[in-house]
C-alpha cells in the first residue's frame, strides 16, 4: 500500500509537470481491481493493448476492490482521491452512486458503439443497473460438488434444491456467510415461485420462512466469506457441495482438474464493472474516459473471456467469444450466459437488496449466532 502511495504520488508529480503534452491527459492511471486471475485477465485484455497504443501512459494497479467502498469513502472525506478507475460489483456501484462517491455517466457519450452501430445503451441493455456503473462482465454464483462423493447408485445433482436434500446427498455444504443468494435459494426450494421470491422475501414472514428452510441444514453448513474458500473446501473433501463464483469453479475443474462438477441451475447472475470516482481533476478524468471507452468496447470485452470464464457484458461481444488463451478450449460453453447454462437463472435484485440488506442481514446474523 505504501509503495502504491509513493508510486502514485510520484506519478502525480510527473503528471503535473508534464500536463502540456498528450492533449491534457494525465499520463498515469491508478486502476483498482480484485487481484488474482480476474485482474490478470484485465491486464491482458485491456491494459496491455492500451499501453501498446499509448507508450507514454503508466498504469498502477491497486488490489483493493474488496474494500473499495469503504476506502473510497475515506479518501473522499480526506479530499484526496488517488484512484482513477475502480472495479466493483454492481451492488457496490449502486451504493457508491447513492453516496455521491461515483461519477454519473452518460453511457452513449462515454462508451463506444457496437461495431454495427448499436448505441452503447442498447448494447449493454438492462445491465446498466446504476447511473454510475459501466458493466464489464456477467458472473454467477452457483454450486459445485465433488463428483467422487456422490453416493453410489445416486445420480449426480442437477437441481439447486440438492443443497437442502441431505438425505440423498449427505455431507457438508459451504454457503456464503451472508443472506444474499442463500435466502432466495431457500425460498425457491421451499415451494415459492421464482417470480414471487422477492415479494415473499420482503415480508417478515417470508424472511422467517427462508431462515427456517436454511435451519434444516444449519448443522451441515460451513459458512464462507472469501471466494477462494469453497474451491479449497471442495478440493480438500471438507464439503460435498458449496456455492461460489462460476469462474472459481471453472478454474478448479478445467485448469486444476479436480473431481468437481457444477450446477448451473438457479445460478444467480451478478455484474462486475467500473466506476469513475467523483470529482477527478480534468486531466485525470480525460485519461480515464479515454481508457474506459477503449477497455469496454466490443472487442476488448470479448477478449477478456479468453482468460477467464465470465460472460462479456455487451450483447455484441457474445459472438466474438473464442478459445481459452492457454488451454485452447472453447470458452462459450463455460460462460454463465451460454444458452445451455442459463435455462434457469436469477438476476441479483439490486434495488431489493439496497433496501433490505441491513434489515435482513441483522436477522441472518442473529440467526447464525443462535
Amino acid at each position, binding site marked *: 500500500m505504501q509503495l502504491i502511495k509513493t508510486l502514485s504520488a510520484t506519478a502525480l508529480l510527473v503528471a503535473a509537470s508534464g500536463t502540456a503534452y498528450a492533449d491534457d491527459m494525465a499520463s498515469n492511471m491508478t486502476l483498482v481491481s480484485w487481484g488474482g486471475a480476474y485482474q490478470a485477465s484485465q491486464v491482458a485484455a485491456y491494459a496491455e493493448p492500451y499501453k501498446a497504443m499509448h507508450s507514454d501512459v503508466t498504469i498502477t494497479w491497486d488490489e483493493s476492490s474488496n474494500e473499495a467502498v469503504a476506502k473510497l469513502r475515506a479518501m473522499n472525506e480526506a479530499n484526496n482521491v488517488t484512484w482513477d478507475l475502480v472495479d466493483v460489483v454492481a451492488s457496490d456501484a449502486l451504493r457508491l*452512486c447513492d453516496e455521491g462517491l461515483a461519477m454519473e455517466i452518460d453511457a452513449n457519450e462515454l462508451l463506444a458503439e457496437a461495431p454495427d452501430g448499436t448505441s452503447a445503451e442498447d448494447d449493454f441493455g438492462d445491465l446498466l443497473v446504476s447511473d454510475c456503473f459501466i458493466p464489464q462482465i456477467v458472473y454467477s454464483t452457483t454450486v459445485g460438488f465433488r463428483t467422487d462423493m456422490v453416493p453410489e447408485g445416486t445420480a449426480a445433482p442437477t437441481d439447486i434444491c440438492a443443497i437442502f436434500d441431505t438425505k440423498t446427498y449427505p455431507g457438508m455444504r459451504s454457503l456464503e456467510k451472508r443472506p444474499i443468494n442463500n435466502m432466495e435459494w431457500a425460498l425457491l426450494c421451499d415451494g415459492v415461485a421464482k417470480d414471487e421470491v422477492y415479494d415473499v422475501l420482503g415480508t417478515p414472514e417470508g424472511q422467517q420462512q427462508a431462515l427456517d428452510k436454511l435451519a434444516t441444514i444449519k448443522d451441515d453448513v460451513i459458512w464462507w466469506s472469501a471466494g477462494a474458500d469453497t474451491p479449497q473446501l471442495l478440493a480438500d473433501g471438507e464439503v460435498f457441495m458449496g456455492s461460489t463464483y462460476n469462474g472459481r469453479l471453472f478454474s478448479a475443474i478445467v485448469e486444476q482438474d479436480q473431481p468437481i462438477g457444477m450446477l448451473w441451475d438457479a445460478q444467480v447472475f451478478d455484474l462486475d464493472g467500473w466506476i469513475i470516482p467523483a470529482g477527478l481533476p480534468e486531466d485525470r478524468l480525460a485519461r480515464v474516459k479515454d481508457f474506459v471507452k477503449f477497455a469496454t468496447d466490443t472487442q476488448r470485452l470479448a477478449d477478456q473471456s479468453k482468460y477467464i470464464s465470465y460472460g462479456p457484458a455487451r450483447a455484441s461481444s457474445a459472438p466474438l467469444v473464442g478459445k481459452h488463451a492457454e488451454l485452447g478450449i472453447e470458452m462459450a460453453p463455460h460462460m454463465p450466459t451460454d444458452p445451455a447454462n442459463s435455462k434457469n437463472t436469477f438476476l441479483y435484485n439490486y434495488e431489493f437488496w439496497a*433496501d433490505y440488506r*441491513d434489515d435482513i442481514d441483522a436477522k441472518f446474523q442473529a440467526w447464525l449466532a443462535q
Partner: protein
Amino acid sequence: MLIAPLLLFVVVTFIVPILSMLFRSVENDIVPDTIPGVVTELAEWDGSVGAPPSEQVFRYLYLDLFKASEAKQHTRLGTRLNYEKTGLSSLLRTTGRSLDDVGEEWQDPLEDIDANFKDGAFWYQMMSGTDGEDLLEERRDLWAAMVGESMAGDVGFVPSEQVAQMLPWTTRAYTDFAIWTAIEDEDSVAEEDPWEAVYGALGMDLTNPETVSAIQSYTGPGADALKAAAANVGQLPQTGFREAFAAENEDWLSPDVWATIKLYSSSMTSGYFLNAVDMQLTPDGIEQKPENQQIYTQLFMRTLVMALIITASCVVLGYPVAWLLANLPMRTASILMILVLLPFWTSLLVRTSAWKVLLQQQGVINEILVWLGFVNDADRLILMNNATGTIIAMTHILLPFMILPLYSVMKTIQPSYLRAAKSLGATNWTAFWRVYFPQSVPGIGAGSILVFILAIGYYITPEIVGGTSGVFISNRIAYHISSSLNWGLAAALGSILLVVVLGLYWCYDKIVGIDNVKLGG
C-alpha cells in the same frame, strides 16, 4: 519538552482520528442539514394521530429534496434513514429521480399562461432587486451545511425584498437555484433557466390569497406575467404536493415513514448506541429489539468470555515454558527462546492458515486420530469453524505475549529463595506455591493484560477459523466499516468495546493493583 514532538505526533495521528471516529457514533447532522425545512416544520406534527403531515411539510420536502438531489445528497440521506427503517433508501432514490416531473406539472401550464416564464433572463430580472442580502446569506449557509463545504463567492444575484415579501416560496427556491448555479456550476444566473422547483414554488405561492391580492398591486418587473398567472390559477394543478409525492410513491403517506424521519431529525442521536446494545428508538420510547434481531449483547459477552478463556489457557501453557526458559542453562534456554520467538516473527495470516490445515475435518489432526484408531472415520472431531477453533488458534498466536513478560519477571527471582525455603523444611510444592509463585504474579498480571486486550480486539483469526460461533464483536465492527458502511454503528460498537476494556482495566487496578504489573526487571 523533549517529548513534545512525539506527543504531537501521537495526538495528530492517533488520538484525533480515534476521537473523530468515535464521534460518529452520536453524530446525525445529515438529517437536519439535508432537509432543514422539513425538520423544523415536522416538529409540530403529532405522529400519534396516525395521519401523514400537512401540505406545508410536503412543500418543504419538495424544495429541500430538490436541492438535495441537485447536490446528490438525497441518496445519502436515504442510506442513513434506511438503517432505521427498511425501504427509505429506495424511496428517496426513486423520488429523487422524479422531482423534475413533479415541477413540470406547474412549469408547463405557467409557460402556457405567459411565455415569458420560459425565459431565464426574465426570471432573473423579476427576482432581482435590493435589500435581499440577508436572505441570500441565509440560503447560502443552508447550502453550505448541506454539501459540507463553503459556498463563498459572488453569486451575481441579490433577491428583491419586495418580491420576497410577496412570493416567499419562489424567492427561496430561486435564490437556492442562483447560488448553486453561480458557485457550483460556475454559470451566469441570468442566462440559466430556473429549476423546475422554482415553478413549483410559484405554484405554492399562488395558492395563498394574500399573494394573489399583493400581485394585483405589484408594478415591478414581471408584473404582467404574474398577474396573468394569478388570474389563471385554475390552469395549475389543483392538488398539492402531498398528492404529488403520494402519486410517486404511496409510502410518503405512511405515518411510520414520517415518524422515523422525525425521530432521527436532531443533529445528535442515541440511535447507534441503542442499536449496539440491541435496543431501538421508537416513537413510544426505547425498546428491546425483536428477539430475532438481537446479536450484539451476545457477541460482546462471547468476546469477553472467550478472551478470558484464551488468557487463562495462555497462563496455563505459558507458565511452565517461561519457568523452563528462566531456569535452564543459558545455552539451552536461548534455543528454547528461539522456538518461542520464531512463531512470533511469522505472519499472523500464515499461522492462522496453518491452523486451518491442522484442524479441519480432513486435516492433519483428524487424519492422525483416525489412523491411530482413536476416532471413527464417520465422526471426526469438529475442531474449527466454531469457538474451539478460535480458542486453539488464538491461544497459540498470543502465547509469546504471555511467555515473554513471565520470563523476564521469573529471571529476576533469585533461585536461592527456593533453596532457602526447602532447607527450612518446605516440600517442593509449598516452596513453589508460597515462595516462588507470589513473586511471579506481576509477570502473570502483565502477560494477562497484554493477552486479554489483544484478544478482545482480534479480528482476522476468528474470521478465518471461527465459523459462526467463534467470531468476535470486532468481526461485526469490521463488517460495518467495510461492508455495510454503517460507520455510526461501528463507532458505537467500538466505543462500547473501548469503555469495557477501560472498565476492566480499572477493576484490575483496584483488585490486583497496577503497580504489581511488571514487564521486566
